[in-house]
């Protein structure tokens, strides 16, 4: 953590800052440009005696070493988080309700209970049980649903396509429309269209997701009768995957839920792209690009939009996770037979195995996305791969 500016997540700053420095890269840059101080110099012996000719290689090597250390550290952190989540899920199993109670019926003898205790391994020490639970979970065995009496993994596999298709369409919608509108509102900053879009988006941010869904149902299903209000329509089975993309009713059923789910993310991405674009469009290199006589489109998209992508990809990546999480709400509104609806029903009926499995799956996803976004920075922004404050 940077001691001067308290940047919340200074991963890439910390990475490009020399080891041992207590301030992050952006603070150092500010300090150097504003007061001419080099806050990092004393911590880095190589730096003081470097010559212009030796500039690139040693620093690259040191960056690579640092990057590797960083990647290892991040992966370790993620694994630790997953272990803790696994512990929470396991404790839910162990301490919320009695698994034996849940599995045996009314007519049971003490011997039955004892036998099941040994079969389930409940007589083992806590750590052994936790280890067994984790190994089972890694192999995709999450136990049997109390409510449906079927393996949880089987139920999840059956429900997953619905949620994933919905999330994919919403995510696509949010990204394309969000970036498009963001660029539009930034370029036509004072136009009527841009102002209308901005005001509408303010309402979009404050409306709860489930209200958007209900209002859409009211308008398009009840009043106009154009689109179905619940379910997935007809689905086609391809192997284990049931898809709604191939039938007309399936596609129609996708429209309202995906708009509901994607709207919040869309407004978020739009506002972010807009503010980043406005920032970038002020820069000198944009003016220079215009002066070079480049066409407006090339300036806006090649030069400006590309440079807004780092924060946009961060937020978009992190939002992808919340799309799956918020699918719970959308799926309930539209009775969409996906994983989210399964989870909500599991909470209502205290179906612990389903809850635990969902918790673990979603954490793997969230942690994975977080990790991926952190690592993606290097792929996207070449400035992070070479030292930013180099001698030029």
């Amino acid at each position, binding site marked *: 953590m940077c001691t001067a500016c*308290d940047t919340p997540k200074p991963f890439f700053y910390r990475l490009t800052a020399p080891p041992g420095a207590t301030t992050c890269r952006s603070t150092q840059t500010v300090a150097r440009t504003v007061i001419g101080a080099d806050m990092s110099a004393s911590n880095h012996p190589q730096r003081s005696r470097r010559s212009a000719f030796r500039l690139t290689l040693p620093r690259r090597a040191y960056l690579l070493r640092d990057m590797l250390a960083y990647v290892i550290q991040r992966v370790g952190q993620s694994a630790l988080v997953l272990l803790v989540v696994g512990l929470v899920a396991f404790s839910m199993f162990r301490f919320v309700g009695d698994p034996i109670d849940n599995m045996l019926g009314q007519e049971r003898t003490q011997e039955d209970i004892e036998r099941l205790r040994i079969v389930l391994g409940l007589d083992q020490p806590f750590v052994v049980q936790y280890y067994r639970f984790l190994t089972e979970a890694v192999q995709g065995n999450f136990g049997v649903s109390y409510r449906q009496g079927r393996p949880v993994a089987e139920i999840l596999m059956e429900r997953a396509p619905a949620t994933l298709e919905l999330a994919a369409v919403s995510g696509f919608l949010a990204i394309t429309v969000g970036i498009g509108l963001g660029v539009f509102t930034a370029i036509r900053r004072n136009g009527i269209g841009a102002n209308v879009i901005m005001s509408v988006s303010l309402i979009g941010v*404050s409306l*709860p997701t489930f209200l958007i869904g209900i209002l859409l149902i009211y308008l398009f299903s009840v009043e106009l009768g154009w689109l179905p209000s619940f379910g997935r329509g007809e689905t086609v089975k391809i192997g284990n995957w049931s898809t709604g993309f191939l039938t007309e009713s399936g596609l129609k059923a996708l429209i309202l839920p995906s708009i509901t789910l994607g709207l919040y993310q869309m407004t978020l991405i739009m506002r972010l792209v807009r503010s980043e674009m406005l920032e970038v469009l002020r820069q000198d290199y944009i003016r220079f690009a215009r002066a070079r006589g480049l066409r407006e489109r090339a300036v806006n998209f090649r030069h400006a939009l590309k440079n807004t992508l780092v924060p946009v990809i961060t937020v978009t990546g992190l939002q992808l996770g*919340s799309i799956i*999480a918020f699918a719970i709400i959308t799926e309930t509104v539209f009775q969409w037979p996906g994983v989210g609806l399964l*989870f*909500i029903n599991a909470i209502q009926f205290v179906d612990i195995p389903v809850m635990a499995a969902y918790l673990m799956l979603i954490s793997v996803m*969230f942690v994975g996305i977080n990790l991926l976004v952190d690592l993606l920075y290097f792929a996207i922004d070449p400035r992070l791969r070479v030292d930013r404050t180099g001698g030029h």
Partner: protein
Amino acid sequence: MVDTPLPDTPIKDPSRLSLALQSDFFFQFKRSPLAMVSFGLVSLLVLSAIFAPLIAPHNPFDPGSLNLMNGFSAPMTPNAFTGETFWLGTDDQGRDVFSTILYGMRISLFVGAAAVTFAMVLGITLGLLAGYVGGWTETIIMRVADVQLTFPAILVAMLIFGVAKGVTPVEYRDQMAIWVLIIAIGLSDWVQFARVVRGATLVEKNKEYVAAAKLIGRTGPAIMLRHILPNVLSPVLVIATISLALAIIAEATLSFLGVGAPATQPSLGTLIRIGQGFLFSGEWWILLFPAATLLALALSVNLLGDWLRDALNPRLR
């Protein structure tokens, strides 16, 4: 040199009210129509929720005052059987929608405010500890905060609710639901407070007044609570306002999903959940009026929070 005689009557200190009226803050408030409108709307809604038993024409929780014949009355039209008129219509059991909204808003606001208070107390305590004590305490608290921030708050709240539901015996579930809801939303929301308070504490603890307090021998807790806390409160106030809007929406969402306030104590979210069942048969008022109320409440608190953030930020003045 001539001594000026002391005035006979001592000059009165300005009263707290006149100080408040002359403050920058009030001046900012007077200049912003948006702030005044949203403040007016918030106070109107809060007051009508508090005084619901006096305002509401019916008591929706008193079965004696209900008449099934009044069911499904449309807004502002006399009922076909009884001839009674209801401003916002009635639901299937003849409950006055206006009254249920007033009582529902009470529960929504209570849960929201209590959850934010809980989150605030927890967040401030942990944030102060993390910032002032540092070391391992800080590492552990902030790591937990980071991990929790990875997951959406609503998901965390749902999980806590689900686990708590499994732990409480069946016969107490409905009574406990409101309190479980408060704890679940509060626990899902403390991170914001903790981060901000920690950040501000890190800055404050190196200032001279803290050193002075240490010198005269004040203990750690006293320094944290009496000296540092008052200086970090203004960002906390802003977050609390915005959190209130989020907590109200979170509560409504959970109740709408059926994992929140039970039907015996319906909040706005529960009312919307109930109303959704009547949407297809044409009784739109059972759904749309609670929805509009929720929207007005969330939007006005949100706008007030936005304004507060700008008004309390010295950089923007």
